[in-house]
C-alpha cells in the first residue's frame, strides 16, 4: 500500500459498475466478486431511484466506490451548472464515495450539451479559467476533485503548451488530484504523434490518485477511445511505467461497449497486478502512427 494522496486512500484494483453485471452482483456474495472497488458514472445515478440505485447501494455496502462524471464541463466558457453540482453533492452524501472525478474537457456551451469530452485549447488563459473552476468545484463539494486526462482527436493551432505541461500546472495550481488514463495517453499519442512515455514522466506522480485502463478501437486513420476491447499491450507497458513512478495507486478497468461477462472482465483486470509484478504481455508490433 502506498501513502494516501491528497488524503485519498489506495483502493486496489476495480472495475466500472455497468448494467450487464447488475444481476451477478445482486445475486452473488461479495467475497467472490474478485474486485477491490467500483467506479460509477455519476450521471447514471443522479436522479435514478430504480434498480441501478439499488445495485449501487448493495455494492457500496460491500466495497468502496468512486464517482466518475462526464458532464462537469470544467473547461466550458459557460457558467458552472449549479443544479448539476447539487446533484453531484446529493449523490455523494448518499453513497460517500472515496472521491469524485471528471475530465479535463468541456461538453458544451450556450446551455447545450454535446455529450462528448471536447478538447480545450491549451493556452495560458484557459489554464487560469480551468484552475479557477476546479477550485470553485472543490469548495462546493468540500473535497478534492480528481481530474482525468481525456483522449483527443484534434489539437488547436492556438495551443501554447503540451497537454502534460498543462495538466501538471493545473494540478499544482488548483491543488487537485489526477486520474491518469493510461489508455487515453496512448490514444492521444498515436493521434497527435507525441511520445507517451514523455507524457507520463511529466505528470506529477504525487498527485495521481487513480489510473484508468481500457481498450480503444483502431479506425484506420486514428484510434478511438471506445472502451470496447481488452487493454492493448502498449498500454500495459505504459501502465507498468506509470505505476512504478507513482509507487502504485488505485487502478480501474473501464469497459463500456461489447461488455464481456463478469469473469472475463475480472480476468482482464487481473492482468494489472501481473503487470505490476513484472509480467509482460506478448510483444506486439506497434500500431502504425496515425497522427
Amino acid at each position, binding site marked *: 500500500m502506498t501513502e494516501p494522496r491528497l488524503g485519498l486512500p489506495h483502493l486496489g484494483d476495480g472495475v466500472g459498475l455497468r448494467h450487464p453485471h447488475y444481476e451477478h452482483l445482486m445475486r452473488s456474495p461479495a467475497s467472490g466478486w474478485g474486485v477491490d472497488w467500483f467506479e460509477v458514472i455519476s450521471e447514471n445515478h443522479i436522479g435514478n*431511484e430504480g434498480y441501478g440505485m439499488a445495485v449501487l447501494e448493495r455494492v457500496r455496502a460491500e466495497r468502496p466506490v468512486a464517482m466518475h462524471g462526464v458532464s462537469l464541463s470544467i473547461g466550458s466558457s459557460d457558467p458552472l451548472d449549479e443544479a448539476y453540482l447539487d446533484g453531484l453533492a446529493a449523490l455523494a452524501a448518499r453513497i460517500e464515495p472515496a472521491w469524485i472525478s471528471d475530465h479535463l474537457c468541456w461538453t458544451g456551451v450556450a446551455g447545450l450539451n*454535446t455529450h*462528448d469530452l471536447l478538447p480545450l485549447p491549451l493556452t495560458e*488563459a484557459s489554464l487560469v479559467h480551468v484552475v479557477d473552476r476546479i477550485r470553485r468545484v472543490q469548495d462546493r463539494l468540500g473535497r478534492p476533485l480528481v481530474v482525468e486526462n481525456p483522449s483527443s482527436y484534434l489539437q488547436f493551432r*492556438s495551443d501554447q503548451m503540451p497537454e502534460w505541461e498543462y495538466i501538471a500546472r493545473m494540478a499544482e495550481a488548483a491543488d487537485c488530484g489526477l486520474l491518469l488514463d493510461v489508455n487515453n495517453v496512448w490514444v492521444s499519442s498515436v493521434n497527435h504523434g507525441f511520445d507517451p512515455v514523455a507524457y507520463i514522466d511529466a505528470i506529477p506522480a504525487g498527485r495521481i490518485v487513480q489510473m484508468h485502463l481500457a481498450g480503444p478501437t483502431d479506425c484506420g486513420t486514428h484510434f478511438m477511445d471506445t472502451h470496447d476491447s481488452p487493454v492493448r499491450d502498449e498500454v500495459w507497458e505504459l501502465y507498468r511505467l506509470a505505476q512504478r513512478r507513482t509507487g502504485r495507486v488505485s487502478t480501474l478497468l473501464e469497459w463500456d461497449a461489447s461488455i464481456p461477462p463478469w469473469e472475463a472482465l475480472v480476468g482482464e483486470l487481473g492482468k494489472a497486478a501481473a503487470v505490476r509484478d513484472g509480467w509482460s504481455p506478448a510483444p506486439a508490433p506497434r500500431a502504425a502512427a496515425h497522427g
Partner: protein
Amino acid sequence: MAELAGLQSWLQEAILAGGAGAEEAERRVVSRGALGAAGRVGIYAGGYRSRLIECLRDEYPALRRFAGDTAFDLFTRGYVAARRSRSRTLWDYGEGFAGYLEASAPPAAREPGSLLALPAQLARLERARAEVLRARGIEREDRPPVTADALLVPGARLAVPDSVRLLALDFDLAPLIRASDRGDLLTAPEARPSRVAIARTRYRVQVHELNVAQHAFLAALADCAAADRAAARAADSLDRSRGSVIAELALWLPVAAQQGLVATAASP
C-alpha cells in the same frame, strides 16, 4: 475568456452542423498525417450524432423493431436535427421524441385508426416505461398493505406510486410491447382506444391494461389521496353510479396493489 468562448462556440456549431469546412477548420485545428483538420472535427461531429441515435435506439426498441431500421433511422435523424440536448444527462434526450413524431406525422395521421399515428403512440409508451424504470418505487418502503376495504372506509388514504404512468392510447399496444419484449414477430396492433398503466414491482416494469373506471380512479387518486373520494370522482367523470364503480374497484384493488399501481399513502 472571449477567445475561449469564441473557439468553443465555433467547434460546437461545427459539431452540431455535422462538420466544418476545410478552410475554416485549417485556421483553428492542426492537420497531421492522414487526418486533416476538417477530418478531425468530423470525428467529433460523427460521434455526436451516433451517440444521440444510440441513446434513442436503447430507449425505443419496440418502435425500432416495429418500424424497421430504415424508418427508425429517419425518425431519429430528424429528431437529432430538430432537437439539441440541454441536459447534463443523455437520459433526458429522448423525452421529446414522441412529441416530435406526433408533430412531424403527416396530416392523415389524425384520421381515426391511421397507422401513421402509431410511431408517436408507441414512443409515448416506451418513454413511460423508461421513466418508470428510474422513478422512485415502493420496493424498499415499509408501507402497510392495501386492504380490500380501503374504498369502503371513509378517509382511507391510498396513493399512486411515483413509479406509475397512466396513458390513454388509440391503439391496443400492450400486446405489441409484450411481443417485442419476448422477441416475437410484431404485427400491427388493433386501432381502438385503450388505457394502460405502466408500473414497477420488484424493479420489473410491466404494462397493464385498464378499464375506464380503473384508469379514471388512478387518475383521480393521483390528485386526491382519499380513496373513497377518488372513486366517487371517477364515477362522476364516467357518469356512472358511485356504488357500482366502488364495488367494481373494490374487487380490483388487491390486484392493483399487487401490480404496484396503488399503495397506502405515505405518512405525511
